[in-house]
């Protein structure tokens, strides 16, 4: 499969820092793949994701998307750790915010909003304001907003780290369903190894200072109900060993 996104030799450095946060990072993400990026806190995962999202310039290196941007599309879309809804907009209007940067006819906008709200099962909450939503609903809204721009790659920055364990499990299942339905590739940043092993097809481990890839493992276990499969615990342990 051809890569949909290629990052080459990325080096990232915080302004004024002596050593870079991340050195010489390269990755190819295949079309429709689910790749997890794992590492301890402070290793630079979120910074890397921002560079890949085009929100921050690397010191050196490039990020390239293979397919040209289609009309009414954004090739990359990001889901933030904090959900980041605009508090003065209703849920539907927050989803619409993602679409306002694209010049879409009103009817198409409306249709896209309905589509992603039903995909994320939020249709009944469309008129609510963010403060009226639960943590899990806020995260699903952030996912809906990102999906509405029909991205080739969904960049997710520890999206489930701020919700309780029960909600988290539900959101993980939900995301897998959404991923299968949408066809977008996902680059999923997490510090939780079990979460990475549970959801992804490939786990990339970042460690060190400056950080680099210390492990890149394909996960071949069947996608659903992995936890119960023989080999899952060993996989998690194996990744843990690399950190």
């Amino acid at each position, binding site marked *: 499969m051809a890569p949909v996104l290629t990052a080459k030799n990325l080096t990232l450095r915080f302004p004024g820092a002596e050593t870079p946060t991340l050195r010489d990072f390269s990755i190819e993400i295949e079309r429709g793949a689910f790749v997890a990026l794992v590492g301890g806190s402070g290793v630079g995962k979120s910074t890397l994701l921002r560079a890949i999202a085009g929100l921050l310039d690397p010191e050196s290196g490039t990020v390239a998307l293979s397919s040209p941007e289609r009309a009414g599309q954004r090739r990359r*879309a990001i889901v*933030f750790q*904090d959900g980041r809804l605009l508090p003065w907009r209703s849920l539907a209007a927050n989803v619409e915010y993602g679409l306002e940067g694209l010049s879409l006819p009103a009817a198409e906008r409306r249709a896209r909003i309905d589509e992603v709200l039903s995909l994320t099962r939020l249709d009944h909450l469309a008129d609510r304001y963010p*403060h009226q939503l639960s943590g899990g609903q806020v995260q699903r809204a952030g996912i809906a907003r990102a999906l509405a721009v029909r991205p080739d790659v969904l960049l997710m920055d520890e999206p489930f780290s701020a919700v309780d364990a029960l909600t988290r499990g539900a959101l993980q299942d939900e995301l897998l369903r959404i991923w299968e339905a949408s066809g977008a590739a996902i680059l999923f940043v997490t510090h939780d190894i079990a979460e990475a092993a549970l959801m992804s097809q490939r786990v990339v481990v970042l460690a060190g200072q400056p950080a680099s890839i210390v492990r890149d493992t394909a996960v071949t276990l069947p996608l659903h109900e992995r936890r119960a499969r023989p080999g899952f615990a060993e996989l998690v342990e194996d990744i843990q060993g690399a950190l």
Partner: protein
Amino acid sequence: MSTALSSGPRRALAGAAGLVAFVLLWKAAGTFGWVNPGTMPDPFAVPAAAWDEIASGRLLPAVGSSMVHYVWGLALGSVLGVAVGLAAATMPRLDAAHAWLARILRPIPPLAWVVFAIAWFKVSHAGAAFVISIGVFWVNYFATYAAVRNVDPRFYELARAFGHGGYFKLNRSVTLPAASPGILSGLRTGVGQAWMTLIAAELLGVPGMGQEMNAAAGVGAYEAVVVYMLAISLVYTLSDAVFSFFEERILSWRPS
């Protein structure tokens, strides 16, 4: 609060009792000669004085005249204050260029400008509106500047992530709504601030409640002075209520 006084009727009763106690104390101060009786208005004579001011056709035109320069001064000061505050907070060069000027002009009390108000506008609504607008301007300028500076930078990152750019577009979609609670609270303070300056601004001779008050005081009609004081309080309370009605509507997205 779980105290009995927090319940509606009891609280109203306590409020009324406080008011009555105050009026009695006031009355006593005159009756028992605690203060010079010639300068102490009689609270029981205020209703008659109010009727007098209305019947003689002085009160309502005075309120109307005050409202003219109040509204103009408030509108001018509010619009300019918000606009300059927004511009200064969002344009670093302008911010740097105007910083010293603002520091020099800010401490000058609005009433100090009365001299120029008379020189430039003569004794007119425009002069009074000018003086009122200065106080309102600074209130709104500072409120807007601070509110815009405090907008969560993560909202701008979100805007960039979804392709929202352009100075005016960002102001409309992020800066103004995010800063609206602070801006609105500045506008509301301005509504009050304008009243504070208004009476003094009218001392330059523009017809209005301040001038009537001054005239009444000149002939020792202190009950009439109280009537105008209460009229100001009433008009302020009404304008504040109107404002907060709209403020609540605009900020309905906020958790209560």
